């Protein structure tokens, strides 16, 4: 089951991350997970929020370039080797991960990781086959 990530183009300028966070915060949008990928001149902010449709509208209305990206949120046993066991499944099955990052807060005894796959559908088949639990959109909204 895929969930929606919002990707936002940001220049490496002071205060731009704050601008995004305060815009969403002021409109009661909660950021559940967040990561920034940077180059020397620009970065891409990737977030998972509880109200994606509202968030993207707010961002675009405020002249941010923002897109939806399909990602998968995976439950990872919060113990030594927990992540490794899942990565092994991907590696064995030639599933390519573009990038991944963690959720801000835990809501079970498991850690939650956002993963962006080269081929999300194929990744989901593999996840299902190996009984790795993924989190649904409605779970995120209810966090």
């Amino acid at each position, binding site marked *: 089951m895929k969930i929606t*990530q919002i*990707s936002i*183009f*940001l*220049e490496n300028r002071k205060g*731009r991350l704050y601008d995004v966070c305060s815009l969403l915060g002021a409109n009661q949008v909660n950021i559940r997970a967040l990561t920034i*990928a*940077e*180059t020397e*001149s*620009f970065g*891409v902010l*990737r977030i998972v929020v509880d109200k994606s449709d509202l968030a993207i509208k707010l961002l*675009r209305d405020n*002249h*941010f*370039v*923002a*897109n939806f*990206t399909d990602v998968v949120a995976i439950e990872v046993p919060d113990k030594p080797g927990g992540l490794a066991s899942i990565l092994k499944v991907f590696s064995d099955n030639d599933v390519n991960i*573009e*990038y991944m990052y963690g959720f801000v807060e835990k809501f079970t005894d498991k850690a939650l990781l956002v993963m*962006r796959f080269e081929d999300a559908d194929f990744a989901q088949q593999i996840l299902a086959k190996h009984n790795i639990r993924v989190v649904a959109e409605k779970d995120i909204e209810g966090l």
Partner: protein
Amino acid sequence: MIWRQDVECAAPADLKALQSEYLRKLIPYIYHNCPVYRQKLDAAKATPDKIKSIDDIKRLPFTTKEDMRDNYPFGLFCVGQDRINEIHVSSGTTGNPTLVGYTKDDLKLWGDVMARVLGCAGAVPGDTIQIAYGYGLFTGGLGFHYGALEMGLRIIPTSSGQTARQLKLMKDFNSKIIACTPSYVLYMAEEAKELGVDPAQGNWKIGIFGAEPWSEAMRREIEGIWNMLATDVYGLSEIIGPGVAQECHHKDGLHIFSDVFYPEVIDPKTGQEVPEGEDGELTITTLTKQGIPLLRYGTRDIVSIRYDKCRCGRTSPRISKIKGRTDDMIVVRGINVFPSQIEHVLVGIEGTQPHYQIIVDRQAHKLDEVEVLVEVEQRFFSDEIKRLNEIRDQIRREIENVLSIGVKVTLVEPKTIERSMGKSKRIIDKRAL
């Protein structure tokens, strides 16, 4: 030295008689050999019988860069291609480049006016010149080469680049004259210092700099660092290449070789000549060229002109340094850069034109740098850095292909490029000229 005493120091009345004689021959020649011009002359009622003296030049139609482009490649030629001995092309706005073709006599003329340039700068036969303008389709390198051959100089044809070798050849062959762009000679000074060479102890005593705008402050800097006389040369490939005008050692305006390149300074709004000393567009008629003679060609360069005799003895009129451009073309490292070229590339890649801005700057290391800011748009945005870098690199490569100079491309957020009247300001020239 004054290479052509007879014309460079001619009494004004004699000069005028010569110009009139040339123009009386030129108009029938063009009229009978170039259908495009024949039509223009007919339309302007400036048929050969009407042109009796140089004063009648006002009856002639103007020629623009667009005329050259529209009639690419051979429409403005007055001779068959079998009589063309050399061609050069320079970058145009979009699509067609500007093509110039020289007959054997045109090449002789080029050698002659370039010898005048060299003499005006202070060269005498036997001197050694290092030509560090690019050799090739750009007219800089070969123009200087022909002039130096004509005068009988010893030529070191280094072309541009390879700075360490330039410095070694300067020393090993004791070259007295350096010809290159002004930014390149400053760049070489930096390199020299890094190599432990004191530029002030260098051999170059005369510099002939052009192909890009430069200021009096830059002149002082060059003269101070290199301990040389730095002079300004003017030209454009449509007219001949370098060799249209040159400063003498008084550095008080550029002597324009008006016996062959007849200058008028025109108000672009009215099409009328401005009073002496006032600014306008330099407009040139090539009085003796055969391949592609041009009538009242608008150079788009803003200058003023004066006709008084110079302390050096020359009577040829003097134009000021270029004070601006009538369009927004910029010259970077000798290359003409038009915003439309960059638009073309962006539209090709993105389908429509994103907002963009060209920033030209000259940093401490002295070579002009071009940065193109491109506003990221929804349709080519990706969550993957890899993909964004690919787009940026593709834009960079394609712009570099079109302009033939290195550029930096930076992706910026929407609405960050300054707009005036809804249009983005396309060029920011930060060079301290």
